[in-house]
């Protein structure tokens, strides 16, 4: 028994090291640039592939070949990170908050396809480290020598980073910038150089983490997304910008997972609890627990309010006399499509209508309420499962089942929102992600109730909604009404109060607005409308599975909102339309559709840093001024 615990503890230490390397790079980048770098996992993946190629090039058997390859790969990835900062991110620092995230999301798509093109689809097993191929006997069990090396690497890198941060002028600047970005600018430091070098270091660490993982895991195309989620969790649990915190968090999470696996199945009160299944969400459960107790992570500090960062949102223009008639006309025109269009146009429009409502509900949260959510799909998914289960298990008619969707979506948001509104910024976003992942894992594993990974099948509406044209009209109407209601709320005193709380919680509080209460209600309302969209989704697709509430759906929502422009009300509708059409068109036209989609998004990001709707508005304003 003791031997088992010790061995698993060593496993946890080895796992923590590689987690720490990738997470600390992310943490340093965020600390200085405030950029949520989705592409960090892609840098890690690049590290793996480059190391594989370089080691093959230098010679697989020799120590020089191996270590030279690892170091070369890390350096190359560092350079790639610096280039990304110089060529892409530097151009959009002044864009609204979180917009940079869109660019890094585009990079994920591009890097993935580039790796597929360069290295092929097959997994590439890396070489073992020369001289460390074997195992050492500890307590009668064999511990891989390479694991022992990894156990040492974590603390060594931590120590080197500490020296770098505390004993060099560069490190002092980085720490200063992490605490107060504007201060560093005032002190006359070349910010561009500082940012580039920080990206180099962060990317280098990601690349090193990937390269060092190669003897333990084949290079494969799925690793980018699985590692970036872990890295974010570690960074947030540790406290963003805190290197020591990242180390502590990596240790905590890796140990917790190793122990879950060691415990295995336990019988309690006649039910078998499978701790190994818990590894599916262990890190997210830990993150949720930590954030509820410590809102800025284990060693994090409350972030200094970013003054003047990003573009100030212009005042909301009350809808002119023509706005509502124009919107109604647009809906009416869309309602006439079935008369002239072919079947697929309706299918696509159903998707667009549903995603527009979903994106509008997320925008309500992100824009006016100022709460970025990385887990909004949880409420979309809860809505779709509520509708699906009411339809399948309770035998409710579609109309009634559809009412269950916003109710359950809203109830979920009410529950989780209570915790989330106690945080702010990226911490809030990550807590929404944690809750979404927890909901996802419950849905994913609860076979008897939710159908597990297969989901619910056979949700085809019967009766008058069976006909696709009718279904389309119903979806269009419900989505339009939902979006209309959200817009009304933004223009109503409640929406103003949300914006007030976002602009200045201090001032809002000082004029009698109970900020948390308003944010909580806002969160629940956003969840309600997301749930409604989810209900429509279930009946338009005929089946749903856990992906409905997965991270990818949440990210899609974010992309739609940011693409459309977070500072305008029509943004999410345009974003949902553009994203759905782009994806549909590009996926049909090319094998490397991800890369093309990524490049298209990157182009939009660089040309229209205010999003599509923002660009349109500027265009209209210019045309007006020219007249």
């Amino acid at each position, binding site marked *: 028994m003791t031997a088992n615990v010790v061995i698993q503890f060593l496993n946890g230490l080895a796992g923590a090291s590689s987690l720490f390397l990738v997470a600390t790079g992310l943490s340093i980048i965020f600390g200085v640039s405030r950029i949520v770098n989705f592409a960090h996992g892609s840098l890690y993946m690049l590290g793996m592939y480059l190391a594989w190629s370089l080691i093959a090039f230098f010679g697989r058997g020799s120590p020089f070949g191996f270590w030279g390859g690892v170091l070369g790969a890390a350096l190359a990835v560092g350079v790639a990170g610096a280039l990304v900062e110089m060529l892409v991110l530097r151009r959009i620092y002044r864009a609204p908050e979180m917009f940079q995230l869109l660019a890094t999301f585009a990079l994920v798509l591009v890097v993935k396809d580039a790796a597929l093109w360069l290295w092929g689809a097959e997994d590439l097993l890396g070489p073992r480290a020369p001289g460390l191929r074997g195992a050492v006997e500890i307590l009668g069990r064999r511990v891989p020598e390479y694991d022992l090396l990894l156990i040492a690497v974590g603390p060594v890198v931590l120590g080197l980073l500490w020296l770098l941060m505390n004993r060099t002028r560069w490190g002092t600047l980085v720490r200063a910038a992490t605490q107060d970005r504007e201060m560093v600018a005032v002190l006359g430091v070349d910010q561009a150089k500082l940012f580039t070098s920080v990206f180099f270091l962060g990317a280098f660490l990601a690349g090193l983490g990937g390269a060092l993982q190669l003897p333990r895991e084949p290079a494969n195309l799925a690793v980018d997304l699985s590692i970036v989620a872990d890295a974010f969790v570690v960074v947030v649990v540790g406290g963003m910008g805190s290197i020591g915190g990242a180390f502590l968090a990596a240790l905590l999470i890796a140990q917790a997972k190793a122990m879950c696996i060691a415990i295995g199945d336990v019988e309690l009160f006649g039910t078998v609890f499978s701790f190994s299944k818990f590894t599916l969400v262990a890190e997210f459960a830990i993150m949720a627990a930590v954030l509820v107790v410590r809102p800025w992570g284990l060693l994090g500090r409350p972030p200094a309010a970013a003054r003047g960062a990003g573009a*100030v949102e212009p005042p909301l223009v009350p809808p002119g006399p023509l706005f509502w008639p124009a919107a109604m006309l647009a809906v009416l025109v869309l309602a006439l499509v079935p008369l002239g269009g072919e079947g697929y146009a309706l299918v696509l429009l159903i998707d667009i209508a549903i995603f527009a409502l979903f994106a509008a509900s997320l925008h309500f949260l992100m824009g006016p309420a100022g709460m970025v959510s990385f887990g909004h799909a949880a409420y979309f998914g809860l809505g779709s499962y509520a509708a699906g289960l009411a339809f399948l298990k309770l035998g409710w008619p579609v109309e009634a089942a559809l009412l269950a969707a916003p109710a359950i979506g809203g109830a979920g948001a009410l529950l989780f929102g209570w915790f989330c509104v106690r945080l702010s910024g990226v911490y809030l976003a990550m807590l929404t992600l944690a809750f979404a992942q927890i909901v996802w894992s419950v849905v994913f594993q609860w076979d008897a109730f939710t159908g597990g990974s297969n989901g619910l099948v056979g949700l085809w509406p019967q009766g008058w909604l069976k006909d696709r044209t009718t279904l389309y009209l119903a979806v269009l109407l419900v989505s339009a009404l939902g979006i209309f209601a959200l817009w009304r709320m933004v223009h109503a*005193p409640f*929406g*103003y109060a949300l914006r007030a709380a976002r602009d200045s919680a201090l*001032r809002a509080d000082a*004029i*009698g607005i109970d900020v948390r209460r308003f944010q909580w209600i806002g969160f629940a309302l956003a969840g309600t409308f997301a749930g409604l969209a989810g209900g429509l989704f279930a009946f338009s697709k005929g089946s749903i599975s856990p992906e409905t509430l997965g991270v990818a759906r949440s990210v899609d929502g974010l992309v739609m909102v940011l693409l459309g422009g977070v500072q305008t009300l029509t943004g999410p509708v345009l974003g949902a339309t553009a994203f759905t059409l782009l994806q549909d068109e590009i996926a049909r036209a090319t094998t490397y559709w991800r890369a093309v989609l990524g490049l298209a998004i990157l182009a939009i990001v660089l040309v229209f840093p205010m999003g599509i709707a923002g660009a349109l508005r500027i265009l209209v304003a210019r045309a007006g001024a020219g007249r």
Partner: protein
Amino acid sequence: MTVLEVSGLSKAFGGVQAVRGLGFTLAAGELLAMIGPNGAGKSTCFNMLNGQLRPDAGSATLAGTSLIGLAPHAIWRLGVGRTFQITATFRSMSVRENVQMALLSFHGGLMRFWTPAAARHRDEAADLLARVGIAELADRACGILAYGDLKRVELAVALANRPRLLLMDEPTAGMAPGERAALMETIAGLAKRENIAVLFTEHDMDAVFAHADRLIVLNRGALIAAGSPAEVRADARVREVYLGAGGAH
């Protein structure tokens, strides 16, 4: 009539006693200046009266109601308006909307989800803006306003709940000298006309001595002097603190 009564107010951060045993009273229509060198505990005191900090000990009552333990939004409901050292306004709203927000809150109209907010309390907002002298800025966005004007926006917002007490943390900080005098005059006029008690801190001693009815002087968290401007000016300890601290005044 006494509006605010403070006694024994104390707050420590770690080992540092930021405010110790502070006590004073403030009457309706009175302008009370709280002065003292940096770190004297002025902001801490303000934040305790406003509900952002909870004092370790002491009491503060507004017309008989205790403020201790109340959240800022609850204190506002009792009739306390507040302006900040660094202005806090809603940057994405126009000047009028900033005031409308305060009015909506005062009239209990924030939990409305359907009727447009822009049409509500426009006249009252215009009236408030006129009272602080920025009626013509109503449609400007707060995000692009000059600093001095923002200070007046804050004042208008603070007046929206028809306050009995105004807490103003350095109302003229960051303003040009000419603007300062004008703003202080506006504040003094409002206090007298509408019988509002005003507690303010200020670094600009000209403003303090020209407009305050009474002064209290803090040093290292403790009250060292109180009285009329003339009395305080003559107080030996105050002179020592300011001159000892190398103050210019």
